């Protein structure tokens, strides 16, 4: 049946479209190619998500070589959710952000830019679809190299040192991961994740495996931008082309977190005694510190994009915190927050991209009074910001609600964690309020006074994304079902 081939197609479509986009010259053909491939991938991801709610895992043997010998693609509820995030963010960003991309990317380089974009999408999709440790590494590097190109593609020279730092740290992270899977391969002789888990049970000398746990966890924590290994993130987000920020802020760190959870829960949890305590003991303090410190920095930051980048680091903390609670409800909260945060932050950065088509600088002083000139763009920004804060009725509320419930389940330390979540939500209210104050209360500067609202088609895309924040706050059915199936699947190994 043709639907059986979908796991292969979701990767193949963007990867195959990349060289086509590179060959298409002239006006907007390469953009159209990228948007079309991205939308096709999104449609496939939706079909896979619907299929993944019915069965625990869809396994696809690449080239009909049965796993564990061949490469296996494995779509679970977890990976289906991530597929939706990646392809959805890419599609919305491409369609809504065309005007912004046209002004940021030099015409002579546009077709290469869109090729790199498709490679990034293909790589990220490949990471979450693959069930093979080395295959994941290759896709990780495909997506990372493409992402470096995307970040450096704009005209801003400050993006260059930022992307260099990202390249160095990203490569160290990926190489640590490579050392980790090398050590596991050394002891078990397999690269298939499912097979790895069963074979670690038979390993007598566990020392190399413990070293591997360290390398894999640290490498992925570095790539995911978990505090305090986040230093590459703020500048990379701040100085890249604005639409690229919307895309990578929505999905790239989450994909690394996906691999982290997949390894730590699926591979190590069942086979290493006491791993759950070590994992929680290592990551929970980092998550709490990340939430508080990054939120505090966001409160003092005056550049709009850097502020939201620090806010992203805090949100990564929420996801890690949920996971380190080691319960089904905690993991559900963490995983659904991946989806909800992607929705909120993607919308906010897209709104910023629209503002940037009218203004040259994005400090809080520069956007003074822009709310009165571009009420619809700022309105969408505000709806997504409310979701980021966690106002009831928005998607962000759902994830914070589950996170608080999960924290309360976990006993004495839970009350403290609830306090952390509440305090950081208040901090988010503060830094969002600074934007609101600047955008509406102050008198507009010379540039802002002349700014006009963006055209209707762009607003339509932005508001679709903004209203999705409310829709998934009222109807969280699909992401919640996928998150819960992901959480029980991950924790199934613990019992």
């Amino acid at each position, binding site marked *: 049946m043709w639907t059986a081939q979908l796991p292969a197609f979701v990767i193949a479509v963007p990867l195959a479209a990349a060289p086509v986009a590179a060959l298409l010259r002239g006006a907007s053909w390469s953009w159209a190619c990228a948007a079309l491939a991205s939308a096709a991938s999104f449609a496939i991801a939706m079909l896979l998500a619907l299929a993944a709610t019915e069965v625990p895992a869809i396994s696809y043997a690449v080239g009909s070589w049965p796993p564990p010998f061949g490469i296996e693609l494995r779509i679970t509820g977890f990976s289906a959710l991530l597929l939706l995030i990646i392809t959805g963010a890419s599609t919305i960003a491409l369609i809504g952000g065309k005007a912004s991309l046209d002004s940021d990317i030099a015409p002579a380089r546009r077709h290469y830019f869109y090729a790199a974009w498709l490679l990034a999408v293909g790589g990220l999709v490949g990471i979450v679809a693959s069930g093979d440790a*080395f295959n994941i590494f290759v896709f990780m590097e495909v997506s990372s190299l493409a992402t470096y190109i995307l970040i450096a593609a704009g005209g801003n020279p*400050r993006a260059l040192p930022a992307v*260099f730092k990202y390249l*160095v740290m990203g*490569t160290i992270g990926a*190489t640590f991961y490579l*050392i980790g899977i090398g050590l596991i*391969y*050394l002891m078990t002789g397999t690269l298939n994740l499912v097979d790895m888990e069963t074979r670690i049970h038979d390993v007598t000398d566990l020392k190399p495996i413990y070293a591997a746990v360290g390398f894999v966890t640290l490498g992925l924590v570095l790539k995911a931008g978990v505090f305090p290994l986040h230093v590459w993130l703020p500048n990379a987000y701040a100085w890249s082309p604005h639409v690229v920020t919307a895309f990578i802020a929505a999905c790239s760190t989450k994909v690394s977190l996906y691999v982290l959870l997949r390894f730590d829960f699926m591979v190590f949890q069942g086979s290493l005694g006491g791993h759950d305590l070590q994992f929680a003991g290592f990551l929970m303090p980092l998550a709490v510190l990340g939430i508080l410190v990054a939120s505090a920095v966001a409160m003092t930051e005056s550049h709009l994009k850097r502020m939201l980048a620090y806010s992203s680091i805090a949100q990564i903390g929420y996801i890690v915190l949920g996971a380190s609670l080691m319960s089904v409800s905690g993991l559900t909260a963490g995983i659904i927050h991946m989806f909800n945060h992607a929705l909120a932050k993607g919308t906010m950065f897209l709104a910023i991209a629209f503002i940037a088509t009218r203004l040259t600088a994005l400090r809080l002083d520069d956007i003074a009074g822009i709310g009165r000139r571009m009420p619809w763009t700022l309105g969408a920004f505000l709806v997504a910001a409310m979701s980021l804060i966690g106002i009831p009725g928005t998607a962000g509320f759902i994830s914070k609600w589950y996170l608080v419930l999960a924290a309360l389940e976990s006993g004495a330390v839970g009350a403290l964690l609830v306090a952390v979540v509440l305090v950081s939500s208040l901090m988010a209210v503060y830094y969002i309020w600074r934007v609101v104050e600047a955008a509406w209360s102050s008198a507009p500067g010379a540039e802002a006074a002349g700014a006009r609202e963006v055209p209707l088609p762009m607003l339509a895309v932005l508001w679709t994304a903004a209203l999705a924040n409310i829709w998934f706050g009222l109807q969280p059915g699909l992401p919640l079902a996928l998150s819960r199936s992901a959480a029980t699947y991950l924790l199934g190994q613990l019992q």
Partner: protein
Amino acid sequence: MKYFGLYNYWVFTLLLMIGLYAVIAKANLVKKLLGLSIFQSAVFLLYISMAKVDGGTAPIIQHADEPQVFSNPLPHVLILTAIVVGISTIALGLAIVVRIREEYGTIEENEIQARDRDR
């Protein structure tokens, strides 16, 4: 001999540390990339070392009359891929350094930071 018999792994560790040190300690961006390259090469050595089987030969040599011992070909194939990845990374890194040189007129990290502060 117990600890030095498997000297490949010692060399792996040493190279890894040299590479990581250069990445962290050097301010020159090209030297950082050199460190990164050494760092990655160390991992290649780890994979190649684990593939070695005592007395093993290449898996393409076949003698019908005698049983053959082969080295494990899989890590070699894996590392061939990783080498390609490494080359691409370094190439991209160097391309970025060239662009930094064009924009900032320097490839020393502290000077770049100083110029960013003045901006």
